């Protein structure tokens, strides 16, 4: 860690789900930090635990199945896991904003935009209705929605996907949060609209100075928007580094495999793409040891003993499994 304390510090988090097959760990001792004013990307394939990590931070796990078994979530110096439900309600939407993947489900279809947006101000900022209404219009203007006074009277279905996501962003940022958690914010959008939304988030960050946790499966989005990257595989962080470092010196075999398997502008057309063989084991079948070795079909002691997660270069952390780790520093 460098100079100041980070805004968010997730330490040794374990989140499990109570299923018919027993207690299954979806997040298995995950640690990472989010510095002030920075964007941290969490990348991984479906089921790797990236969304569950975010929902654990927000204490929005599905109840009663989801449980945090261990760990600390330090936000501005206090542990959110120990906060009461009433305290958490003050944190969510006020100090931490959330942007979900599907703007249509994040918005209430039977209320007008204006009412949904004003609600944030009424709940957290003790404003009068009139003040909240004015502040909402200002917020819509901030996310570059044309003719915001008119849009206040619209229902969500009257807006396009890109406009809806702008409204969701406006709601997330309404109370001037210190942290925004964006869970696949552009996955449901087209590329040209995705580019608009990512640019908008960058501009707003420059204006308002909040930190962002961006959850995505798209390494292109990570490369364009993040300062630091957390790579998750099967419920664990396998690598964590500043973005340039991660793309130039990926030290874990899984990160290298992911980066190699996407065609870039330099890949010869129609050539055979490098692949990661096999697939992720089911959550119930995961071994305690190195899970990427499990996927690669390796055996032996490495499947029993969990590899250390170490800082091998400044701010560059890797799970140092003897098979998967290659020291490039």
């Amino acid at each position: 860690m460098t100079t100041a304390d980070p805004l968010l510090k997730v330490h040794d988090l374990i989140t499990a789900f109570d299923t018919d097959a027993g207690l299954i760990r979806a997040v298995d001792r995950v640690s990472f930090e989010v510095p002030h004013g920075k964007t941290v990307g969490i990348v991984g394939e479906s089921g790797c635990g990236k969304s569950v990590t975010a929902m654990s931070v927000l204490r929005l796990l599905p109840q009663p199945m989801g449980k945090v078994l261990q760990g600390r979530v330090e936000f501005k110096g206090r542990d959110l896991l120990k906060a009461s439900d009433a305290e958490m309600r003050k944190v969510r939407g006020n100090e931490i904003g959330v942007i979900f993947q599907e703007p249509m489900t994040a918005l209430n279809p039977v209320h007008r935009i204006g009412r949904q947006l004003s609600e944030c101000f009424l709940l957290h900022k003790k404003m009068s209705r009139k003040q909240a209404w004015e502040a909402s219009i200002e917020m819509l203007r901030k996310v570059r929605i044309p003719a915001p006074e008119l849009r206040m009277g619209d229902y969500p279905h009257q807006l396009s996907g890109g406009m809806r996501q702008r409204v969701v962003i406006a709601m997330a940022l309404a109370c001037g949060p210190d942290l925004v958690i964006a869970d696949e914010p552009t996955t449901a959008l087209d590329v040209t609209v995705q580019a608009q939304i990512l640019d908008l988030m960058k501009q707003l960050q420059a204006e308002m100075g909040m930190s962002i946790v961006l959850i995505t499966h798209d390494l292109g989005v990570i490369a364009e928007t993040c300062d630091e990257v957390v790579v998750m595989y099967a419920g664990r962080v396998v690598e964590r580094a500043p973005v340039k470092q991660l793309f130039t010196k990926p030290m874990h075999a899984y990160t290298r495999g992911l980066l190699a398997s996407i065609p870039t502008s330099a890949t010869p057309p129609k050539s055979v793409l490098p692949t990661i063989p096999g697939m992720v084991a089911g959550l119930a079948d995961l071994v305690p040891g190195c899970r990427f070795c499990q996927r690669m079909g390796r055996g032996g002691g490495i499947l029993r003993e969990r590899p250390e997660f170490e800082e091998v270069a400044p701010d560059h952390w890797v799970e140092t499994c003897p098979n998967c780790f290659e020291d490039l520093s």
Partner: protein
Amino acid sequence: MQSLLSIRDLKVHFPVHGGLFLKQLGTIRAVDGVSLDIAPGETLGLVGESGCGKSTLGKAIVRLLEPNQGSVQFDGRDITKASRRSLQPVRRDLQMVFQDPVESLNARHSVREIIEEPLIIHRTGNAAERRKRVDHLLDRVGLPKGAADKYPFEFSGGQRQRIGIARAIALDPKLVVCDEPVSALDVSVRSQVLNLLLELQRDLGLSYLFISHDLAVVKHVSDRVAVMYLGKLVEVAPAAKIYRDPRHAYTKALLSSIPEPDPSVQRPRVKLEGDVPSPFNPPAGSAFGHRIKHPRYDETVGKELPLTEIEPGHWVAADPCCLSEEDWRKVSAAS
């Protein structure tokens, strides 16, 4: 070269009903005058944003949707008006792979039944031969032998897509329409399925119409790329050419918005405001010119903006709003 598939001025319109007595309010012009060719062994990539009509076009080609106007020639035969019965032999050669590998496989059928079904419908071989063929196909798409007697839910997304591909190639087709075949898959599995599609093409000489919104994937698999915007093609060119030297303003904007997985690359982005207009009520002139509020938009109102060959093999819509001055002069001279 003789085209395997040749589409001319294809239109697919959907009526929109509403109001108290469900009278027709208008039409959605999902595909509005598209012409294109696919050569044997070629992959034509079809890109565009959601709602541009690319999937509708794919479905109209395999006649899952009835075109309103225009013609589809397949292997030298006009299949636009062919009856269901006379279409059956054509279906052997014209298959489809769907986006969602869960929805497109019957959950109550075993993998063997799923892959065998086209063989039974087309009366191919006896039971023993079909059995052998299914085993061969499973092996071909990289699934274990034991997979035949399992059910779709027992497989991961990537494996289910392999089952869908095995079914599509069961009858040795000539053209496979792939509608977003890897969009639902994770990155590491996506490259496996793309490699399989490329390998099958090499070995079996397949042609693909590869529909996708993922421009990086399309670039990797395609020989030629067609860009679609609001029901019309705006640019068609060899893949390497279109990515290096796009001419249409929409293609340029689209290409510049792909996030490149390399943080050291900071490419200038073509800023694009607004959204795709609705195909229910499209602008009267150049659809993209309308979106970018181009000063020459008024010139295009009510005009056809036909694809014009600007360089050998490179076609672009003759649209003054979307071309450079120089290209517009070339295009006007050509038409």
